[in-house]
Structure formats: structure tokens, C-alpha cells
């Protein structure tokens, strides 16, 4: 009895101290269960948590966030938000405030953070190129003008970090892949691969960091660069996957999602077609094509690799297709809201967060039961980014 009291007292003192500390810093928490939701029209982001599924707060003043995207600092404390207007903003997820913002170009499309977390790279349309910034201060460090083999500046797409400590990106107008080695910031080293194909609209790297893939809009095919063997150069896979049939009008450009990889397979959206292409990652041959009720935009594999959930282009963007990756066939269609622009799984895959732009809501589903767990108000939501991306190559 006495002993228990003594233990109780022993516990009480640290408890009091931590309560005092909490009063001074009321938000003491981790960031591992957070998601950041882009509100594209309002120029803001919502910071939400996936444990109780609540919105913690909103950070405003981030500019034009049409096609807004972001990457996280390696400690997952900060988000670097890339705006269409060339804005680069640094958001503190815990204090939920803007801690830095620069306008670094006239028109930008996205960015990446280096393997060591020191460099933030931004892909620009105007002027076409890549700029590197110090992730601590947002101070400029280097600029690479994307002057293609045609002598003109090209828009840059598909900028990702690589396992080599550098970056890979693609020149949309001139059809080139460039690798950037930033070890000497006064003269970043560039390796160029020209003539990869017509109008590469996006590119990404597999989660293991090995394969960089660029999707072509101007022709049927995907460009593959093995980053372990860059000397071999890029090669074409899925050449002529449209089999000569005219593609449908594309009302929304697909995205190449880094997490389109599942075991030995890689899933890719077919441009202008109602199907997802499945490729074998060893032979790079097509093994299946899975029909979808619209043109795929984001093909996202659930973290356990058993299913992929697919968002669709206008006018079918009220639906989400679910694919069974064991049988390589459709496994259902959901209608979670109007204009589903993006989706993000929680790191272990028990929930999926979907942005329903035209409902002004973020819908959270249980991925096993496919039931709604929460529906949170958001102003024209688009991209949803889990802090788990802080620890992944290419995101």
C-alpha cells in the first residue's frame, strides 16, 4: 500500500512537468500520421491527421495552386509546396504556418527534394528549366536552363530525386531526359538523352529508385531509363500499345505515379484509352491490360500490393476503379464524390483519402470494406500528400 503511494508520487512529478511543457507547446505530437491537402483555387493547404481523421488547420497564402504539389523535409516537419505561379512555399506542419516563400519562376509544375534533404529542386515551364534551392533557407543555389537539342528552352516535367543523390527530369517540348548531378553546385553536371519521343507529358521513378519512366503523349509508348546502367541509354517499351487505333480525346493528362509498382509488375495509364497497362518489370513486356470505366489519371497501388485504385479523367471523374492485382482484372467501381482529382493511401493502406473537388470535400474510405469513414470539408481539394512520402525515393 505504502509502496504504491510512493510509486504514485514518483510518477506525479514528471507528469506535472510534462503538463507544464504542454501548456507552453500545446502541439507536441509527431507528424507521421499527417496528410497535406492542396486547396487549388484558394491557394491554401489543409493539414489533417489520419488517426482520428480530423483537419488540424489551414495554411493560406500559397498562390496559384492549380497543379499544386509538394514534397516533405526528411524529418517530415516541413512541406515544400510548388505552385503554378512559380511560388515555392515552406510550410511548418506542426505550427501550421508559412515559414518561407519565394516566387522563383513565372510558371512551374512541381519539384523534388534531394536524397540528403538539403536541396529542393523545382521544375519550371517559364522559363523552362530546373532551379535548386537550399531547403533550410530557400536561398537559390543553382539553375539549369532546359535548352533542348532544338536550341529552344523547353518546359520541364517529371522532376524526381534519384538514388544517386541527384535528379532526373524530362524536357516536354524537345523530348529529352536529363540527369542532374548537383555535387558541384557551381557547375551541376548534366547528362542528356535526346530524341526519346514525342511530347513526354510526365515521368517518374520506381520506388526502388532504379527505373525512370517517361510517358509519351505524341505517340504510343513509354521511355525507360535504367539508372543503374545509364550508359545503355533510354529505350522504348510498350511501343504502339494503341495498336493503331485512334486515341480518344484526352480531357485530363494522366500522371505517372511512383507507386504504380506492385511486385514484378508496373501499372501505367494508357493515354486516350480506357485501360491500365500492366508490364513485367524484368522482361518489360506487356502482360495484361485492365479495362477501366474511363481514362486513367492516377494509378495508385495499395501499399500491400493487392489492389490498385485508379482515378479517372473528365467526364468520368466521379468514379474510382479498383483493380485486382493478383488476377489482373477489375475488382469494382466506386462513386465516392464529384470530380475525384487525387487519392492517397495511409502508409499501411487501411485508409484511402480522396479529394472530391466539386463536392468541396475530402472523403476517407476504409479500403477493405470500401465504406466511408469520414467526409471532411475542403475548398476545391486536389493533391493529397501523406508525410510517409518524406522517406520515399521519387516522392
Amino acid at each position: 500500500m505504502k509502496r504504491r503511494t510512493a510509486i504514485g508520487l514518483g510518477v506525479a512529478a514528471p507528469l506535472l512537468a510534462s503538463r507544464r511543457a504542454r501548456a507552453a507547446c500545446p502541439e507536441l505530437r509527431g507528424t507521421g500520421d499527417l496528410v497535406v491537402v492542396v486547396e487549388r483555387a484558394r491557394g491554401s493547404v489543409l493539414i489533417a491527421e489520419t488517426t482520428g481523421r480530423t483537419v488540424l488547420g489551414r495554411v493560406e497564402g500559397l498562390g496559384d495552386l492549380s497543379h499544386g504539389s509538394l514534397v516533405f523535409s526528411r524529418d517530415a516537419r516541413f512541406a515544400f509546396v510548388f505552385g503554378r505561379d512559380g511560388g515555392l512555399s515552406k510550410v511548418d506542419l506542426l505550427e501550421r504556418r508559412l515559414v518561407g516563400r519565394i516566387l522563383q519562376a513565372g510558371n512551374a509544375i512541381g519539384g523534388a527534394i534531394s536524397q540528403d534533404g538539403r536541396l529542393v529542386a523545382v521544375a519550371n515551364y517559364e522559363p523552362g528549366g530546373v532551379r535548386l534551392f537550399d531547403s533550410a533557407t530557400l536561398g537559390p543555389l543553382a539553375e539549369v536552363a532546359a535548352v533542348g537539342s532544338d536550341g529552344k528552352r523547353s518546359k520541364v516535367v517529371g522532376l524526381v530525386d534519384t538514388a544517386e543523390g541527384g535528379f532526373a527530369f524530362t524536357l516536354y517540348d524537345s523530348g529529352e531526359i536529363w540527369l542532374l548531378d548537383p555535387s558541384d553546385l557551381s557547375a551541376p553536371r548534366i547528362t542528356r538523352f535526346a530524341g526519346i519521343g514525342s511530347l513526354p507529358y510526365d515521368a517518374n521513378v520506381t520506388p526502388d529508385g532504379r527505373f525512370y519512366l517517361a510517358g509519351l503523349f505524341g505517340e504510343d509508348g513509354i521511355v525507360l531509363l535504367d539508372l543503374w546502367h545509364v550508359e545503355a541509354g533510354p529505350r522504348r517499351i510498350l511501343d504502339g500499345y494503341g495498336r493503331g487505333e485512334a486515341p480518344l480525346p484526352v480531357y485530363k493528362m494522366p500522371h505517372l505515379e511512383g507507386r504504380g509498382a506492385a511486385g514484378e509488375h508496373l501499372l501505367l495509364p494508357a493515354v486516350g484509352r480506357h485501360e491500365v497497362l500492366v508490364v513485367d518489370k524484368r522482361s518489360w513486356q506487356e502482360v495484361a491490360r485492365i479495362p477501366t470505366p474511363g481514362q486513367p489519371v492516377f494509378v495508385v497501388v495499395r501499399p500491400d500490393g493487392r489492389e490498385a485504385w485508379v482515378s479517372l479523367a473528365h467526364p468520368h471523374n466521379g468514379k474510382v476503379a479498383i483493380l485486382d492485382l493478383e488476377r489482373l482484372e477489375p475488382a469494382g467501381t466506386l462513386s465516392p464524390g464529384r470530380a475525384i482529382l487525387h487519392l492517397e493511401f495511409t502508409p499501411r493502406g487501411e485508409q484511402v483519402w480522396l479529394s472530391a473537388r466539386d463536392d468541396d470535400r475530402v472523403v476517407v474510405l476504409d479500403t477493405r470494406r470500401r465504406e466511408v469513414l469520414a467526409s471532411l470539408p475542403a475548398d476545391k481539394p486536389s493533391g493529397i500528400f501523406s508525410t510517409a512520402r518524406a522517406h520515399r525515393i521519387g516522392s
Partner: protein
Amino acid sequence: MPERAAAALLFLLLAGIGRPEVERGAGVELAPARKGELVHLLRHDCGSCHGLTMKGGLGPPLLPETLRDKDPEGLVVTVLYGRPGTPMPPWKHELAEAEARFLVELLVEGRVP
């Protein structure tokens, strides 16, 4: 090349070929609710390539200063039939000619709400 394609389409249009496809709703005053839907489409769906504020993205800017020198009827044809060889899709399955013209007027006059 895309200009030439658009010009060819314009010629076909003037020649009356393909006319029935775009006649739906032509010359009709659009209902306010429909105008609201069209503005939403312009900002969010056109905006996914041309930018929410029409300052451009993968697609070119659609600001009054970039459109002023262009023939408005040619722009209507571009909206309805797309620009072959570029990602600009034809919107004729979704938009009547009068609706495309309404959007072009908003853009040229810089009146996107």
C-alpha cells in the same frame, strides 16, 4: 501545322460540312445556370492545362493579351475540334458552338469570373 489544321477545319465549317454537330444551341441565349457550369468547366477543366488563372501550363496562356490578335471564330473552332498534334482535345462532344463562343468571349475580354 496545327494552325493549318485549324484553318482546314474552319474551311470545312464554312463549307457547311460538319455543321449539324455544332448547330446545337447556336444563337440561343444561354441560361444563367448553364453559364455557371461553363465557367466552372473553364476554370477547372480547361484550367488543368491552361492554369486556373489562365496564365498557361502545359497548354499556352489564354489571357486577353495572348488572344487579342487571334480570330475569335478560329478560337471557337479550336475549342470544338481541338488542335491535332497537340494535347488540346476537341470539346464538341460536351459543348455546343454557342457555348464555345461564350467561353472564347470571356477569355478574349478577360471577363472570366
